């Protein structure tokens, strides 16, 4: 039997070597390129290739490393250069041409290319750093700290920065102590419900039955959410370390990561990470020479949103259809194969190494008493700086959207923010001072969810938004229980009717009645939360529903059936034919004054003419209800 006293010694050797190898990277200029999914979508892989070519052409020596995402997705592709003479610099929106030029100027002439730089990564006298901007002031990165700064494909980068030291600590500790620390830290599950993580672990530890299982729920599927994906792609080992610690705490030797197959890069990264951790003896049999063994297997989900619900997730892992079952029993008592099972989100597990290293009090010092720690949000929609942010709990929505996120894109007016995805709710401007935490958001009629945040502006119709999210949940309903299967279907039919201008005055009451029953009667949380977007939009934007139903008017000019395109005669330039040429159905003609007019019978409302009309004229407008066109034509004497 292996001795239990040596993990620190074994780890020290691993770390020494990791540091040595990593330091070698800095012997030459180091170029890091963000190549997570967001970076790749913006062309990061082409950039990597071009940088390598450029280095070749110039006969320059430098190390090029693909890293994950540092959260500033709006500025992808992002490139970081460590070179002597200046602090490390991060550049944003680097296309191949710009990238090659920065490398050329910086590495040959010592010009760090300020004009392309986002920030410097270390305090200095030359150039601002993240903390010189509001976002940097608000952000407090714990889980995301290493994202975008280490090579996710190289375990030594993680080890060199102290990775797996928390595991070493707990290998020497009593499992009960680990649970006590997590309980004392007040960590709440980041999957959405906010259940105390320590309590879940304790229940599982005390539950009869063995083996015990650990599952990481990485079936992230909310529209606009990409927190878990980014963590898996950028710092996969923090998840593995957190899971291994949890395994030790609850007495489990087997963990699974349930990850959706639609995340191929994340699957690749985490699979590779598991392999490397095994090779280093940080995972598998007799971890770091102790008698503790823990294995992790990757399980790929097949694309059903409902499999993020834990009982459906278990069913799908056991080879049955991914359909929820009644709780209790809860997985902590009877989960996978009927055995006690802890199911936690990627983020929840990823906090654990930090809590073990820094202590429960440190974690509690961030955020609020009942909601300690940070909140990780994926900012999406009509926000200036889309990306991934990590702020202390209790940061207000206002701070998050306008200071961290840089406000609304294109100078438009803020209208609402949808938090918690299709299960959450819309919050209007009046709710912007709401602090972000599990309890305050629930109280305000939304929910924390797993961290998706979609910002909506004046051009977004709230009835259409409600319809969109309900369409999503209705299609993702498994169909098992009456309320979700039929209730969401009826609700969707009503919303579709309203967005087409066929709403009836009694529809809103019917919607609210159905919503209340579906919430109360559904079997699982998909159904129980599906009505939330409808209820919150009715609550805060009732006037938009009324305009659709009573006047056939869409105030945001978004619902296609309720708008018509119109060319303002006094703005039309007359000799310009841009709109005529852009129309795919030949609906635009010149009248005898050579003013362009749209034949409403032919128009398919494709928006092409509005886009084509030169901005200095901006003659094409949308009107609602469509009957406005005839009234305007008459008033303005258009023939």
């Amino acid at each position, binding site marked *: 039997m292996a001795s239990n006293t040596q993990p620190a010694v074994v780890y020290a050797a691993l770390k020494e070597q990791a540091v040595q190898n990593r330091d070698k990277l800095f012997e030459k200029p180091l170029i890091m390129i963000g190549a997570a999914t967001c970076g790749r979508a913006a062309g990061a892989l082409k950039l990597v290739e071009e940088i390598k070519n450029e280095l070749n052409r110039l006969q320059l020596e430098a190390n090029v490393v693909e890293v994950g995402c540092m959260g500033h997705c709006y500025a992808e592709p992002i490139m970081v250069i460590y070179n002597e003479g200046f602090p490390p610099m991060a550049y944003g929106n680097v296309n191949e041409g710009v990238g090659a030029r920065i490398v050329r100027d910086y590495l040959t002439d010592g010009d760090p290319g300020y004009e392309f730089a986002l920030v410097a990564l270390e305090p200095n006298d030359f150039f601002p750093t993240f903390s010189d901007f509001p976002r940097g002031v608000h952000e407090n990165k714990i889980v995301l700290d290493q994202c975008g700064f280490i090579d996710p494909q190289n375990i030594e980068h993680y080890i060199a920065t102290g990775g797996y030291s928390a595991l070493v600590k707990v290998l020497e500790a009593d499992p009960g102590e680990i649970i006590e620390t997590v309980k004392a830290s007040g960590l709440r599950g980041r999957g959405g419900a906010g259940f105390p993580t320590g309590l879940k672990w304790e229940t599982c530890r005390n539950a009869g039955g063995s083996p015990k299982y650990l599952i990481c729920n990485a079936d992230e599927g909310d529209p606009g959410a990409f927190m878990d994906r980014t963590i898996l792609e950028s710092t996969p080992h923090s998840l593995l370390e957190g899971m291994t610690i949890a395994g030790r705490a609850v007495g489990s030797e087997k963990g699974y990561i349930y990850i959706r197959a639609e995340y191929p890069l994340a699957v690749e990264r985490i699979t590779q990470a598991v392999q490397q951790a095994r090779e280093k003896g940080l995972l598998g049999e007799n971890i770091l020479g102790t008698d503790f063994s823990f294995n992790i297997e990757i399980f790929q989900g097949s694309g059903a949103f409902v499999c993020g619900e834990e009982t459906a997730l278990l069913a799908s892992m056991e080879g049955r259809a991914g359909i929820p079952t009644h709780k209790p029993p809860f997985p902590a008592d009877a989960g996978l194969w009927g055995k006690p099972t802890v199911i936690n989100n990627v983020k929840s597990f990823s906090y654990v190494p930090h809590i073990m290293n820094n202590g429960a009090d440190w974690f509690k010092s961030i955020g609020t008493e009942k909601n300690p720690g940070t909140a990780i949000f994926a900012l999406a929609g009509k926000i200036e700086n889309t990306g991934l942010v990590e702020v202390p709990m209790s940061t207000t929505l206002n701070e998050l959207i306008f200071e961290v996120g840089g406000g609304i894109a294109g100078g438009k007016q803020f209208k609402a923010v949808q938090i918690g995805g299709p299960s959450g709710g819309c919050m209007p401007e009046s709710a912007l001072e709401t602090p972000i935490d599990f309890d305050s958001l629930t109280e305000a009629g939304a929910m924390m969810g797993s961290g998706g945040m979609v910002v909506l502006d004046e051009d977004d119709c709230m009835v259409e938004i409600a319809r969109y999210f309900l369409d999503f949940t209705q299609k993702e309903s498994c*169909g098992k229980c009456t309320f979700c299967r039929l209730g969401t279907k009826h609700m969707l039919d009503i919303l579709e009717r309203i967005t087409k201008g066929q709403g009836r005055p009694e529809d809103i009451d019917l919607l609210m009645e159905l919503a209340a029953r579906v919430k109360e009667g559904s079997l699982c949380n998909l159904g129980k939360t599906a009505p939330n977007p409808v209820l919150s939009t009715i609550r805060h934007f009732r006037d938009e529903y009324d305009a659709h139903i009573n006047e056939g008017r869409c105030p945001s000019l978004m619902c296609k059936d309720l708008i018509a395109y119109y060319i303002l005669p006094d703005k039309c330039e007359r000799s310009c034919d841009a709109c005529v040429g852009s129309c795919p159905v030949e609906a635009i003609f010149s009248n005898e004054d050579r003013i362009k007019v749209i034949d409403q019978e032919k128009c398919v409302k494709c928006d092409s003419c509005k886009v084509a009309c030169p901005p200095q004229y901006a003659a094409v407008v949308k009107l609602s209800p469509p009957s406005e066109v005839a009234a305007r034509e008459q008033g303005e004497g258009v023939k």
Partner: protein
Amino acid sequence: MGKQVTITVDGKTISAGEGEMLLWTALDNDIYIPHLCSERNEKETPASCRLCFVEVAGRPAPVPACTLSVSEGLVVKTRSERVDALVAAGFELLMSNHRLDCKNCPANGKCELQRIAKARKLRLKPKNLPILDKGLPVDDSAPGIVYDPNKCVLCGRCIRACRRSGNSILGFTSRGFERVVATFGDLPLGESGCQGCSDCAEACPVGALSKQA
């Protein structure tokens, strides 16, 4: 036999086997609770029809009686404003998706939906909701059995009966509103390997599967 416990249902003191599901205890004591999907001798209850809600003292929301295990001192009301509203809503939803043709239906007179409507004074024809008819073809390809999926309430009893018969021809397919009881590969019953035992028809509470006259 397990330990006996004393519980109160609608003010009535009842002695019941500990751990038994309340639904069966109530039915054994002549207290009717609407239900479609649960079966007494099956180990797991689907809890999918959502009609057997009851109120339990000390619990914030109504609970399906088919999942409520009986314990000493349990106090339950099978009727309350909240329960009635919820059951009525669930029933109306089901009826909005059930092709209503009692006069010509082989289940007429022994239909569980009719029984529920009578017991709870509910309408068979939905009042507020439009009818969502699936418009699926009726399958009479197997000798002795007619299957009208448009009447099906997806309780799953036929599937379990088919499995108990040793045939396992029927199962659920598709998701959401499209969910339907079907054979493997959606073959007509007559080509599916169905043995024609008609256990499914015996099990069906609503006349979606019936024995051919």
